[in-house]
């Protein structure tokens, strides 16, 4: 295993942490975690492409980063409609 494999593994651990927030915290916190997971996933694909020496896989990283940003912006439109915002139903009500 080279250093890029280790980086991919570290990024997967970070995605697992984001998944924990999505599952255990409120809706709005989950959207923040989803945004961070998108960044981690695109970097993970990029580092995996370098690890296996397959540069065409880098296209997936670009597309994933782009889709993640656009998806989060679309979700932000729905955040405005959450009753009470972070202090209301969108907040951390499962702690």
């Amino acid at each position: 295993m080279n250093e890029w494999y280790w980086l991919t593994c570290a990024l997967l651990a970070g995605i697992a942490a984001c998944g924990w927030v999505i599952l255990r915290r409120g809706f709005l916190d989950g959207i923040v975690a989803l945004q961070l997971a998108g960044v981690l996933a695109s970097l993970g694909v990029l580092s995996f492409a370098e690890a296996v020496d397959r540069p065409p896989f880098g296209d997936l990283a670009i597309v994933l980063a782009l889709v993640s940003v656009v998806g989060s912006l679309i979700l932000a439109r729905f955040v405005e409609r959450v009753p009470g915002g972070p202090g209301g139903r969108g907040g951390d009500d499962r702690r």
Partner: protein
Amino acid sequence: MSVGDAFVYLLIGLGAASLLVACAGLVLARDFFDRLHFSAPATLGTILIVAALWAREGPSLIGWKGVATAAIVIVGSPLVTHALARAARIAERGDWRAGEDETVERAR
């Protein structure tokens, strides 16, 4: 191990640490607005990792794809953070601007 390899390892280590700090902050932060702050170390980590990729591969196919990915994250991440904060404030208070019950301290 050459100096170039050591530099790449350093950039990868700093980048991974920065991203893991962002994840730890996301898990440990108290509320939504605190969590939003942790997209900044993720952007820094992205820059460091793509810098490591560039230092290893130079202006190659994967190098330019890394730069494109970093560019999207550098532009998109603050944009999304701002949009989410604004939307959450509108959901909470009905308007993103400071209300009459809030005091805003201005810089002197």
